[in-house]
């Protein structure tokens, strides 16, 4: 038991000092939340909570990515690599917007 607690504590400490997770829910063709403050190394977890496919991409200079077709119920993880403002859009529903403010 002691050992397990130790491992748990160690793993929590590790995550605390190195990276955090930010959950973004795609629901009703909207990103929730639509603004996030993050740090380099943080993970953004996109959760598709709608009954149809979504996408998330960024053409921003600091971080370009495209998660492709994201099915209903599917989670996709994107790690923030560089500091900067990352503007995220859904390629299918261009009215969906999310800003990620990534700091060092």
């Amino acid at each position: 038991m002691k050992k397990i607690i130790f491992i748990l504590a160690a793993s929590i400490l590790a995550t605390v000092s190195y990276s955090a997770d930010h959950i973004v829910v795609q629901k009703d063709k909207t990103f929730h939340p639509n603004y996030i403050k993050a740090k380099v190394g943080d993970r953004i977890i996109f959760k598709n909570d709608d009954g149809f496919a979504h996408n998330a991409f960024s053409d921003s200079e600091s971080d370009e990515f495209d998660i492709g077709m994201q099915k209903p119920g599917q989670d996709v993880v994107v790690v923030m690599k560089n500091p900067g403002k990352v503007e995220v859009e859904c390629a299918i529903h261009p009215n969906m917007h999310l800003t990620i403010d990534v700091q060092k």
Partner: protein
Amino acid sequence: MKYFSRFGTILTGGVVAAILTTSAVAKEDMNKWLRPENVPAPKDNQITPERITLGKFLYFDTRLSRDNTVSCATCHNPELGWSDGQPKAIGIEGRQGPRNSPTIINTAYQRHQFWDGRAKSLEEQALGPIQADVEMDMDLDELVKRLNGIKGYKELFEKAYPGEGITKDTIAKAIATFERTVVSTEAPFDRYIKGDENAISENAKKGFALFTGKGKCNNCHDGFNFTDGSFHNLGLGDSDIGRYKLKKRASWFHAFKTPTLRDVTKTAPYFHDGSIKTLEEATAVCGNGGRFPNSKNLSPLIEDRGLTQEEIRLIVDFLATLEGEPMKLEIPTKFPQ
């Protein structure tokens, strides 16, 4: 935020989920099907009567095309649901364009213009067809010169955009302003949503229930304008790659913008290639799996929902209730000289 632990964010996620559940009631709000009173316009091009007057003249004036034969209204004709009744647009000298002329009804409410969404504003859109060789084939510098030689236009531009003169920019702004006045009028469906149970037939009501139920048509044809502005590949099997031409993003392959369904009874033929003549056929293609179900990047929303002929007819009955009274409009017969 610096030491936001994994647990901390998961908790936040829980809060988000809770908020989402409470807002589920608002989703049922029927008012989302009614057109907002105000038309959005950019800060630097607010709608004024002078700008509408000028924009309307420009919109209907064939002198905006190289050989003075074609105006914006040629392909976006108010008599033909602000489209042209042709499978594909026809410009000067009978030149055929690559796509169907989309209606401009309620286009003011759309974030992206053109079938592939390549323009991000109506101002940006307005200058496209004027220059396109298969449409009006007019050089913009030449057009500025031509309009500057017309005294009547010089006065109208001065009234609409004081001190700005006749430029590419003010031409685009004026046409965009007129387009912002082309909005759907009250249709039987709107009266029904407002509470008049007799405004539409029982069949149309069943059709609306199928539209939002079994047919899942409102996955894309959502809100008062019956479009969420999304881009999809319907698997029509033609060679037009659509939005993919802008950037090679996988989900944009062969994808086109979801069109409005307001006044859709007036805008046949349908789809970006104008290949579909009736609403029954269009409903079957969208609702029962596309024309070529094995198309690359076929939208996952295009699946066989097993709509029967009878159900398709009911949906079309509903679509007919989206046709409003013709918009009150005086088409100019005399132009600035």
